[in-house]
């Protein structure tokens, strides 16, 4: 369960570049719910994700993940509650470490790390099984350095990494945006499978309206640091990308000038 109450985030406070990135956002996501978030550039979607992940600490408001108040907790302190896949495949894993070392790191997410060998036989076997499920042939390359993999392979491994340790919430930050269409589809199908199987509470930020409507149970649109649209259930099932754009225009009473919203 995720609950944010009246979150305000200001960047560059007191400078000429001051920007209200989030302006009183409140949102509750139930246990096991899959929410997609859309919005134009600068709408505040990345900031919202950052607030949940701990990268951005809000100037006002409350953030609760599971049953823990994490408002003032940094990224590392709340990592046990939050699993995450980044937009840039290079950010989510260590290129200079091997695949299995990356998996070992992720397997202890949010837990204490002692002097136990990171790659015991038992763990290796477990990693091999989990990576084999991807059907990418990577189970025979576990000792390879992560930076030898393609962007798509890295994102696929990152998804596995996100589920090795338990978490209250899975955050996906445009995690297919940097991939070619084929690999993007593969990673999205994998995401769907993992989220469904594990009943993960998930928030996915995406640039693609198509993705936003095709996946998950609920779609939120952000604009100017506020939630301007929040659809779920039957009204969402019949919703088309065109409707979404029309709705967006009506709510905002302005013309849509951002091509990025139309793509996909």
């Amino acid at each position: 369960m995720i609950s944010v109450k009246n979150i305000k985030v200001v960047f560059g406070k007191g400078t000429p570049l001051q920007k209200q990135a989030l302006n009183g956002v409140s949102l509750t996501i139930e246990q096991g719910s899959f929410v997609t978030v859309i919005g134009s550039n600068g709408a505040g979607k990345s900031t919202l994700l950052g607030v949940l992940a701990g990268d951005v600490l809000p100037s006002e408001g409350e953030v609760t993940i599971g049953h823990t108040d994490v408002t003032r907790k940094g990224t590392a302190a709340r990592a046990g509650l939050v699993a995450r896949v980044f937009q840039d495949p290079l950010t989510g894993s260590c290129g200079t470490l091997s695949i299995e070392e990356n998996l070992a790191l992720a397997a202890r997410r949010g837990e204490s790390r002692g002097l136990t060998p990171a790659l015991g036989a038992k763990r290796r076997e477990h990693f091999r099984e989990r990576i084999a499920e991807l059907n990418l042939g990577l189970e025979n390359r576990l000792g390879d350095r992560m930076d030898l993999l393609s962007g798509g392979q890295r994102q696929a491994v990152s998804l596995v990494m996100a589920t090795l340790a338990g978490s209250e919430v899975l955050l996906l930050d445009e995690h297919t945006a940097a991939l070619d269409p084929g690999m993007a589809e593969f990673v999205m199908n994998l995401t769907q499978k993992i989220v469904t199987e594990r009943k993960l509470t998930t928030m996915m930020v995406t640039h693609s309206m198509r993705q936003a409507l095709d996946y998950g149970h609920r779609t939120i649109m952000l604009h100017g640091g506020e939630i301007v649209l929040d659809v779920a259930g039957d009204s969402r099932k019949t919703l088309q990308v065109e409707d979404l754009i029309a709705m967006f225009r009506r709510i905002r009473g302005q013309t849509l000038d951002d091509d990025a919203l139309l793509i996909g």
Partner: protein
Amino acid sequence: MSQIAFWGAVELGLVYAFVAVGVFLAFRVLDFPDLTVDGSFPLGAAVTAVLIIAGVNPWLAAAVAMVAGAAAGMVTALLNVRFRILNLLASILTMIALFSVNLRVMGKPNVALINADTMLSPFYGSGLRDFYVRPLFVGILVLVAVVIVWRFLESDAGLAMRATGANARMARAQGVDTSRQIYLGMAISNALVAFGGALFAQTNGFADVTSGVGTIVVGLAAVIIGETLFGARGILIALAGCVLGSILYRIAIQLALSTDMLGLQASDLNFVTAALVTVALVLPRLRRRGAA
């Protein structure tokens, strides 16, 4: 080069292997360019020398030297993590401050350990000649240190440290407190370097406040020579590379200085070091260009 000169070079290489491993931890594992070592090496020598003269057990004196080195590393980490001073500059500040600290510790620029008991005393006169005893003794300590550092870096805790240097953002997302890792890594790194300084004092019979000048370059030289020879093939190989690099560096220096043909003298040491490191840095690049 005489046999004594050769084994002397090996011994010095092994002593500086501690520096090399420390530098490897800071520069390669944590990606923290740390010049503190120029101060923590003589700090280790000063602390151990003063304590031995005061009648303290030489092993204990070396242990205290390690604690002092760890503290020096933590100061650099504090300046960087807490006060946001650029890592390189933070380490230079600690290094400069340590010069005064070392003078205070010794009360004078150098302390001699003539006839004092050292860690090596029990092994002298055991039938083996002294110039064999010293490298053998130091070599065993190096082996122990390498195994410990290797096991650490391949543990869960060590992986957290490696991730901190490789991708701090990812490390934090995995719950690694990267600030704490920098404190811990800098402490371990400088403790190793200070132990090298303690060994230096005990094998050479003196501690000198100027003996730290250029420690970082020597340590880097060893790391780079090791990498040039072995490439990047895992932690254990990298650590072995540091040790071998350190020994080879000393032998190369000894050869350069003992060859009359080159007309070099002892005071040319720093220039030869700089030239050697430059060659070790440029060589892999030239080789790559040749292959391409």
